[in-house]
């Protein structure tokens, strides 16, 4: 069974299912996560939604409506309730349907969830997970296609992970649920149908550990989330031209595995950061800044960033396609830094 291939969506679902089996204090809430149907049709409706994209589908059947709760469109209330519940003994998973909705509930996330422990002098813990959709490519336009994880990375007290494969999606979910801090878990909408090998049982991909997705010697390409796959595609193209890149996938952005990134840069002497988020005050800038400050003497060329432009996400399909960093743009940036 080690070769079992499942989707990203299934991997997240399984990750939640196993954690909920393991620990009865893990609960799940969000808009339509139980699918509404359960409230007025028979409980065992197989067709019930599991969130907009079916990620939580079926969990209400196994765990019941006491542990899998539909919520009103009241993000402040239910995410704040997750904070309150976490600090008094549960380990809630709250689904913020799209990260673009952070603007209606950020206070409960960053000023409450992210700071209670510090403000209380360490006398509280807030073990909770916020799962949320990110990413362009779904023709969902400016308010439903953002990444925005750089905003969360700026705010102390929160942890943040951006899974990039079904395998790490499941393992990072387990790590996030078991962590005693608020962890924001970013699911890329355009990756949910991607497939990959995922073991059946429980396992943890630890927070704060990068993965070398591809070893290489000519340049370091740090690629976050969906960009990992694009960087690997670029790597194949580049390899044909004799350029051998190392692809580093941070997996967690908070805490960030600075050592892994710096070691790679010190080895390859060149850096390209690939990130779908907007560029200013972003993780991409952060990683470039890190390398400039901590590996300055090792850099043989100016580092480069391949990111979305500094604009909202346009709706029109050709515009949106061009908005997203592509393997071709990554390859071009690598060629520029190695030349």
């Amino acid at each position: 069974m080690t070769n079992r291939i499942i989707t990203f969506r299934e991997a997240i679902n399984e990750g939640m299912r196993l954690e909920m089996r393991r620990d009865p204090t893990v609960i799940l809430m969000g808009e339509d996560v139980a699918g509404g149907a359960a409230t007025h049709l028979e409980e065992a409706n197989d067709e019930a939604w599991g969130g907009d994209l079916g990620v939580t589908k079926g969990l209400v059947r196994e765990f019941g409506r006491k542990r899998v709760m539909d919520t009103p469109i009241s993000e402040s209330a239910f995410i704040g309730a997750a904070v309150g519940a976490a600090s008094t003994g549960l380990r809630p998973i709250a689904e913020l349907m799209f990260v673009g909705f952070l603007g209606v509930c950020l206070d409960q996330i960053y000023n409450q969830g992210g700071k209670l422990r510090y403000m209380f002098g360490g006398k509280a813990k807030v073990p909770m997970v916020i799962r949320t959709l990110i990413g362009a490519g779904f023709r969902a336009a400016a308010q439903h296609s953002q990444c925005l994880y750089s905003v969360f990375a700026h705010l102390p007290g929160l942890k943040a992970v951006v899974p990039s494969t079904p395998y790490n999606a499941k393992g990072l979910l387990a790590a996030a649920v078991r962590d005693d801090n608020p962890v924001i878990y970013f699911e890329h909408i355009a990756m949910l149908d991607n497939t990959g090998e995922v073991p059946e049982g429980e396992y943890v991909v630890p927070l704060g550990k990068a993965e070398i997705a591809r070893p290489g010697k000519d340049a370091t390409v740090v690629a976050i989330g969906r960009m990992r796959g694009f960087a690997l595609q670029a790597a194949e193209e580049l390899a044909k031209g004799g350029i051998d890149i190392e692809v580093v996938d941070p997996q967690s952005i908070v805490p960030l595995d600075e050592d892994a990134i710096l070691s790679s840069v010190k080895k390859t002497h060149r850096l390209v950061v690939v990130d779908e988020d907007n560029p200013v005050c972003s993780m991409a800038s952060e990683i470039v800044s890190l390398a400039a400050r901590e590996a300055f003497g090792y850099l043989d060329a100016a580092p480069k960033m391949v990111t979305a432009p500094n604009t909202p996400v346009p709706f029109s399909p050709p515009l949106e396609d061009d908005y997203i960093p592509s393997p071709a743009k990554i390859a071009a940036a690598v060629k520029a830094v190695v030349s």
Partner: protein
Amino acid sequence: MAEISKDKLLWIYERMRLIRDFENQAAALFAAGKIPGFVHLYAGEEAIAVGLCAHLTDRDFITSTHRGHGHCIAKGVDLNPMTAELFGKATGSCKGKGGSMHIADVDKGMLGANGIVGAGGPLACGSGLMAKVKGTDQVTICFFGDGASEQGTMHEAMNLASIWKLPVIFVCENNGYAQSTPAHYHASVKDIADRATAYSMPGFTVDGTDLFAVYEAAGEAVARARRGEGPTLLECKSFRYYGHFEGDNLSYKTVEEKAKYEERDAIRKFRERITERGLVSAAELDAIDAKSAQVVKEAAAFAEASPYPALSEILTDVYADA
């Protein structure tokens, strides 16, 4: 029954028909892969947008929702750029940059569909405030769903509009669901309009499939706002024929529930009533039907034939030049 001129009756019928035809066509175009992204259809709720907007001029404003096509059409937005916008074409109302969820026409007073549930409440207070500060008699209608009523912004907006006596009409389009979640689960009151007392404003619940009921209640609310007497909360109970968005399996609705829709159909009821009373002839309405079918088809052709925006458009319109 409110007295409505024949011209107005024909206008109302035409707008409702256009909305229905537009939405049915949009469903087909979505199924055919021509309209990308999230598309939320308004079919079934036509009497609300039209019954309200019948009292407005181009100088008045509306704020809308993710389910905004009906509001656009009721407010007089042209169907060609609307359809082109759904396609993401350069000729769209927003040059293709917004799509269905952000369709807008500020010149017509349509301040935008909105991807954020409940976001229209504060914006409506803004156009209301503008009218108040400038001393005009412009009014703003804020459309929002039953689900949106649980969003904090709506509470804040209704309180603000009340204490500032803003010329805003809050219209809750209660179609019974927020996505798959039924209103009887997500709302702690049976009638959202009952919350009007929490803001010391008049509140009414009407049958949102009955054009005349909507029109009459709307007329009072709009007149009150124009007189500077402040906001009203008007709840219109209705249903949607389609899923929450296209692609929705509708698993959360019972067969019995769906079976009642035809009977409650707003357009059919309106048509029967005005023809039975001899206010207009069936022939006149048939002509509108034919015209409407034609107009939406042409709009689709226009959209289809239009070019996509140039890639350089990604970078424009972020900021206005100072």
